[in-house]
């Protein structure tokens, strides 16, 4: 075996009492794709940030191409040939591809930019790695997949020999992901090395040569991708054997709970454009789509935080009110996409967060006064029933972990205050559950818990709308699946009628697929 191009030795990093990286030693060989696998919070991002110089390790050293890499210096990392493609792109929409690639790589003090030379170099790099992009196109007009290519080109243009990709497929359709994997294969064939960060087992096995698994800050396993299985990786990742999620289809379909007819919203960053959908009690309708195609608008409209400009929505046979507190009173349980920014108020205690959306329904207020005792009792019940750990009713919500935040958000939405007195009454089951990315960024245990709760609510008769970027989640949980593209919804079809290919085409907006019967 030749010398590794990159060698991490005994990297440790603590944040307060949390050990983010615990003596991690890892080598990257020339011409290989190393997958860095781990759940959220396992230490992947910290490790990469140390490598790229954003953090300084408490202990340990890094060697690149045989030279020690100075700690805490992003410029040194760039100069040593490390390139990073972030999950959230760092491109200027109003500049051309060429300008974006040149941006920051030229000296501030030179009088003229050397565009012709830069263009030639860009074209040459693009041809060499099969990354064809029009150099003069405005980045703002490019698709997400094309923007990602620009990010990769930018790193290669600056002479990256080691490329770090952070969750690169999170924003791509299955077809775009395949194209990306092709590009990666071409790059390693030419001697580049790639670190591929992910938590998706299937694609890790599909794309990488070697897999390194992090758990709770420790490197728990390294394996050749050919010699391992998804079950084995999952066990390393979680620390125990887990059973893969099973499809559990709906047993009996109820009557229509919520009907959207040609609903449109005003043009903000994304919008609904004549979207139609019917949700029945007792079924989970899952919405797939590349994020940014109107999912936020759909979730906000059904959560009472965005007004519609056209079309009609009926809820339980009546026109749906477009006010959050009235929706809650009508039995709409809402789980927003962003639990930190929208779901919870971090500075306020858990108990106030637990009752916040029911404070206007009268259950927790008498005249102008808050019924603090009833509110705290309810918060305690939510904490117990939904297994919220890491704090009691008076803890500030921000000190909870992501998974426990989500359990709190889901718990308060699903648990009607009346069910404290009558736990078995069907009157307290929500009519409609609107869950937008409910498991995003959660560990496998929390994901399973959230899924259980959604399925249990469905089996009790609730209509569930699940909006997710995660195709596996959509296909496993959804009884019916619709695809969102450009603010429009395809026909919702039984989950088994979709294949990954047909969903991918619909996500990309292919004509005929989205509107086929």
């Amino acid at each position, binding site marked *: 075996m030749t010398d590794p191009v990159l060698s991490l030795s005994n990297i440790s990093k603590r944040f307060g009492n949390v050990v983010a990286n615990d003596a991690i030693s890892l080598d990257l060989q020339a011409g290989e794709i190393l997958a860095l696998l781990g759940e959220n919070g396992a230490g992947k991002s910290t490790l990469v940030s140390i490598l790229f110089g954003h953090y300084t390790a408490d202990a340990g050293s890094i060697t690149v191409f045989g030279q020690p890499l100075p700690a805490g210096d992003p410029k040194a990392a760039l100069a040593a040939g490390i390139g990073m493609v972030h999950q959230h792109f760092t491109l200027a929409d109003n500049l051309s591809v060429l300008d974006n690639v040149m941006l920051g790589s030229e000296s501030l003090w030179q009088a003229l930019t050397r565009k012709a030379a830069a263009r030639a170099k860009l074209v040459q790099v693009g041809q060499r790695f099969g990354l064809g992009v029009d150099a003069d196109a405005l980045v703002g007009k490019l698709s997400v997949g094309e923007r990602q290519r620009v990010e990769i080109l930018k790193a290669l243009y600056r002479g990256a020999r080691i490329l770090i990709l952070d969750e690169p497929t999170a924003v791509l359709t299955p077809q775009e992901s395949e194209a990306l994997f092709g590009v990666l294969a071409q790059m390693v064939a030419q001697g580049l090395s790639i670190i591929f960060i992910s938590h998706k087992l299937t694609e890790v096995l599909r794309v990488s040569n070697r897999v390194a698994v992090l758990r709770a800050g420790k490197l728990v396993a390294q394996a050749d991708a050919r010699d391992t299985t998804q079950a084995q990786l999952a066990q390393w990742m979680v620390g125990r054997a887990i059973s893969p999620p099973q499809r559990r289809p709906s047993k009996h379909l109820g009557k229509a709970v919520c009907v959207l007819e040609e609903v449109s919203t005003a043009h903000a960053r994304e919008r609904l454009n004549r979207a139609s959908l019917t949700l029945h009690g007792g079924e989970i309708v899952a919405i797939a789509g590349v994020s940014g195609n109107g999912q936020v608008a759909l979730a906000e409209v059904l959560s009472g935080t965005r007004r519609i400009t056209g079309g009609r929505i009926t809820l339980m046979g009546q026109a749906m009110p477009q006010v959050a507190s009235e929706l809650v009173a009508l039995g709409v349980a809402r789980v927003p996409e962003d639990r930190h920014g929208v779901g919870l*108020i971090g500075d306020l205690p858990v108990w106030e967060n637990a009752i916040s959306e029911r404070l206007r329904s009268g259950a927790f207020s008498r005249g102008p006064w*808050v019924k603090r005792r009833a509110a705290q009792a309810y918060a305690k019940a939510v904490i117990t029933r939904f297994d919220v750990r890491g704090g009691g009713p008076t803890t500030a919500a921000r000190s909870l972990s992501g998974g426990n935040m989500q359990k709190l958000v889901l718990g308060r939405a699903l648990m009607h205050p009346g069910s404290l007195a009558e736990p078995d009454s069907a009157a307290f089951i929500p009519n409609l559950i609107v869950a937008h990315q409910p498991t995003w960024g959660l560990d496998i245990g929390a994901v399973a818990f959230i899924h259980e709760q959604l399925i249990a609510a469905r089996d009790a008769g609730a209509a569930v709308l699940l909006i997710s970027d995660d195709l596996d989640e959509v296909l496993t949980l959804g009884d019916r699946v619709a695809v969102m593209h450009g603010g429009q919804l395809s026909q919702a079809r039984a989950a088994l009628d979709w294949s990954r290919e047909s969903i991918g085409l619909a996500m990309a907006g292919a004509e005929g697929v989205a509107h086929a019967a």
Partner: protein
Amino acid sequence: MRLEKRQHSSALAMVLAPIGAVAFTLLVSTLLVLWAGAPVGQTYALLAQGAYGSVFALSETLTRAIPLMLTGLAATVAFKAKLFNIGAEGQLYVGAMAAVAVGGMHGGAGWDLPPALLFVLMLLAAALAGALLLLGPALMKARLGVDEVVTTLLLNFIVLLLVSLMLDGPMKDPTAMGWPQSVALRGELELSKLIPQTRLHTGLLGAVALAVALWALMKYTVLGFDIRALGANPRAAAFSGVPVTRTVVMVALLSGGLAGLAGAIEVAGRTSYLTLDMSPGYGYSGIVIAMLAALHPLAVVVASVFVAGMLVGADSMSRAVGVPTFIADVIVAASLISVLVATLLTQYRVRWR
């Protein structure tokens, strides 16, 4: 250098932070006292004595603290909702104008009302005037995204010009021999003295009662939750159903109303007429007090007595040892900065690279 959020504030930091804040304030002011060439121990002794050392000193300090409490509460309720009301000064003046208009013009007798009713009417008019002055900027912020710092600050200057106009026009006191002052309030409307032979008036009880009321409102009512939620996370507040515009309006009415009351109570308790120099910046000092009190209504009472004590004590100390009275402003400013930094350091740690 950058700041890292602490996972948990350590107990040691919580103890050390206030001690460090006091030590820093003392250090800065001691250096300045030394620079002025005065004996340090004696200067501080005189300062404390002049502020709290006798019934007279204490009465002066508390008199000065009354408007500060009210403007401090005005800033507290607004800042809790992240409505940055810098216009308490102007709201104080329109409150004072409204008080004079109701209780002083026409001899206060244009309407034949019993004094008790007229008194209530005077306070209501003052609160309403201050509230309406803030309502415009608040609605412009909620609906159009106009920066309320700019609008409320600039309104202060407009209001001062308006006061100037009124003092030379409709509110002019014809017996003041050309001094720019308004007609006086009717005698029955003036607040009675709390301690005879001093200037301390019953406005103090009103201000403290309002502090307790605001504390209860913030802690125990739905509106209090709405205000705190809106300030802490407006998107999450809207998601949970907080009526955003209505809450902003309520905050504006409360904050502007409290500042307007400060004006009326100054007129009714201390000056009995309106002048252009009635407030030495009480509206702005209210912001300092609210921050010193960490936006806690009850702590506003304490912070007001501290700031007023420094201002009053510095006057008498300055006469005795010749340190300029500006030392009081330095102490207040240094204590604010050190309290803010200390609070920051309990929540964040500094990394030097």
